């Protein structure tokens, strides 16, 4: 079917501002992605999954300028021993990065996967993104596959002694970055990947993750709290038998953030947890869109999303659990909740379950509410001032999502960041 004229125009205008990198072995995948994108068109407000989030500034030819956020606050995860992989405005920076060598893992720059003939990465690039386009389209991810200018291939073969820390620095007020990472976790291997930083004025990131049988990936992300940045991120995860994927995202401010997760449980007994805590203030729009597909027996999936919104901030959650025929003994859980600290903020949620197997336990819930006045009075009656009591209850509200992080030290860092945000009131 031909695209509506308006959509086609937007798509072509955006494409006109992009150049496909001269990318050797990924060329075919990139051209296929471009073809997919042309068929889908870039998202518009009329698309079912873009009703609550205005895609205009994500699809415009140029990135809307975003002032750099200058702060003397310590950088995220600085307290951890980690292998730093730094990108500045979407370009890998060897000077700022650590030497990419660590036992149990091999890290290569995307542009090197061809000359180094890294088979798994060549074969993975664009594949999970392409698979993930059905039943719901992710045109910005296809755009990413076609035009990504940098990224890394992370091959986990053992249990590296420290986390891989992807750091995205923002240096130019008009930067428009497209990064694409591919990750392969081999059987029995286990890794923690950290991500932080605003990346660019506009950031489009795609990460394709293939977890083999018995592999484990922990992912903890803190998106930069720069007020003006925009980001559309996509994670496509394919999970083998008894594999584990646990992803947590903290988002603090940012004018527009759309985080998509597409998880496919293809091996029996796999466990996927996708969680997020977001706190937004004022001109802030945050969207979590999650699709979990159960295509194997006895798998568990959890989606836990908590949003605290004030001064007119908007939070969106779209989450779906699809249980395919034959995916018996599925345990699917989904909760999305917002705490609205004033009447101007809003939370829009679209939880969905689609189940074609008969022996499953799936539940979902979505709530939106204000601070519990009874609890607030209880705390105040013990002498805790209103502001401090409100903060305690706000943190308590977010706790359920933060508790999804398995590593206690990482969870503590997230909590302390949330406390900072509460204390700053911004």
């Amino acid at each position, binding site marked *: 079917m031909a695209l509506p004229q308006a959509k086609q125009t937007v798509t072509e205008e955006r494409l006109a501002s992009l150049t496909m990198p001269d990318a050797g072995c990924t060329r075919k995948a990139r051209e296929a992605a471009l073809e997919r994108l042309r068929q889908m068109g870039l998202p518009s407000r009329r698309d079912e999954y873009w009703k609550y989030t205005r895609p205009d500034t994500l699809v415009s030819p140029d990135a809307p300028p975003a002032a750099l956020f200058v702060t003397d606050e310590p950088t995220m995860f600085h307290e951890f021993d980690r292998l730093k992989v730094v990108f500045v405005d979407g370009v890998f920076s060897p000077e700022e990065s650590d030497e990419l060598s660590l036992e149990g893992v091999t890290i290569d720059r995307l542009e090197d996967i061809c000359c180094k003939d890294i088979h798994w990465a060549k074969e993975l690039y664009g594949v999970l993104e392409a698979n993930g386009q059905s039943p719901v389209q992710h045109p910005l991810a296809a755009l990413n596959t076609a035009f990504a200018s940098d990224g890394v291939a992370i091959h986990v073969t053992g249990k590296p002694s420290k986390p891989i820390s992807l750091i995205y620095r923002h240096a130019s007020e008009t930067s428009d970055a497209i990064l694409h990472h591919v990750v392969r976790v081999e059987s029995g291997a286990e890794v923690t990947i950290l991500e932080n930083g605003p990346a660019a004025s506009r950031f489009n990131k795609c990460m394709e993750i293939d977890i083999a049988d018995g592999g484990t990936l922990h992912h903890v992300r803190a998106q930069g709290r720069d007020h003006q940045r925009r980001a559309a991120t996509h994670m496509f995860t394919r999970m083998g038998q008894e594999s584990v994927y646990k992803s947590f995202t903290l988002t603090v401010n940012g004018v527009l953030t759309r985080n998509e997760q597409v998880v496919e449980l293809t091996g029996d007994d796999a466990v996927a947890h996708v969680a997020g805590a977001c706190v937004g203030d004022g001109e802030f729009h945050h969207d979590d869109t999650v699709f979990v597909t159960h295509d194997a027996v006895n798998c568990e999936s959890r989606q836990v999303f908590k949003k605290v919104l004030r001064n007119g901030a908007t939070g969106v959650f779209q989450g779906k659990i699809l249980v395919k025929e034959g995916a018996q003994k599925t345990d699917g859980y989904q909760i999305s909740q917002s705490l609205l600290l004033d009447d101007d903020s809003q939370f829009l949620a679209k939880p969905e379950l689609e189940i074609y197997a008969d022996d499953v336990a799936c539940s979902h819930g979505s709530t939106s509410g204000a601070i519990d006045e009874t609890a607030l*009075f209880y*705390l*105040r009656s*013990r*002498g805790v001032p209103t502001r*401090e009591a409100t903060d305690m209850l706000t*943190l308590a*509200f977010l*706790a359920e999502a933060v508790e999804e992080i398995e590593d206690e030290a990482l969870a503590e860092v997230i909590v302390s960041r949330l406390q900072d945000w509460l204390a700053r009131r911004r």
Partner: protein
Amino acid sequence: MLEIKNLHVKLEEEDKQILKGVDLTVDAGKVHAIMGPNGSGKSTLSYVLSGRDGYDVTEGTATLDGEDLLEMEPEERAAAGVFLAFQYPVEIPGVGNMIFLRTAVNAQRKARGQGELSATDFLKEVRAKAKALKIDAEMLKRPVNVGFSGGEKKRNEILQMAMLEPKMCILDETDSGLDVDAMKLVAEGVNALRDEGRGFLVITHYQRLLDHIKPDVVHIMAEGRIVKSGGPELALEVEHNGYADILAEVN
């Protein structure tokens, strides 16, 4: 110490007068009990004194050591020395009992211009006081009142009271939902806090709590007023004859 004069209170939401001229003075070192039938305004009195939203004071005053309570925020009243043991202690998922207690103790100390209690001193004190109330370490770690039994919740209230060392303790039906053993434990906790500088206002339906917490004065409240006051024998009279006789006599 606590002085309530001609206190009139109505519900903010509806035009319903709950307290219709309460007069009550509790001196330091004394235990006053308030008894009365359902709907007489006992719990409202406790909420108004602690500063809960939803009530309009239309007339009258309430002061603690001369300070106007009604002008203060709930946390200011707490710092001034008012403590309400809730009839239904609130469950707060996600807030650890210990963190809550420590925040409350230090917030009050700060409000009074005292330094914060060190973590070690706090821990020592809370452990000793919890032990006396048979509150185990596990309970202290759990979120505030979440999954606590009725008895545990009430003991937790008394623990908070013991830690905060208020001047004026208001106990709102602390005996409700307690079995005899739990009630004894709670009463012991309360009695341990009795001293010359501290006043108590014990609100209860039944005389049995007063067997364990011996009052100096007993008041009967009905239809928003204190209709009769007397010694401990008044509670026994209620226990034997119910409220009907007293109300008839007053009317």
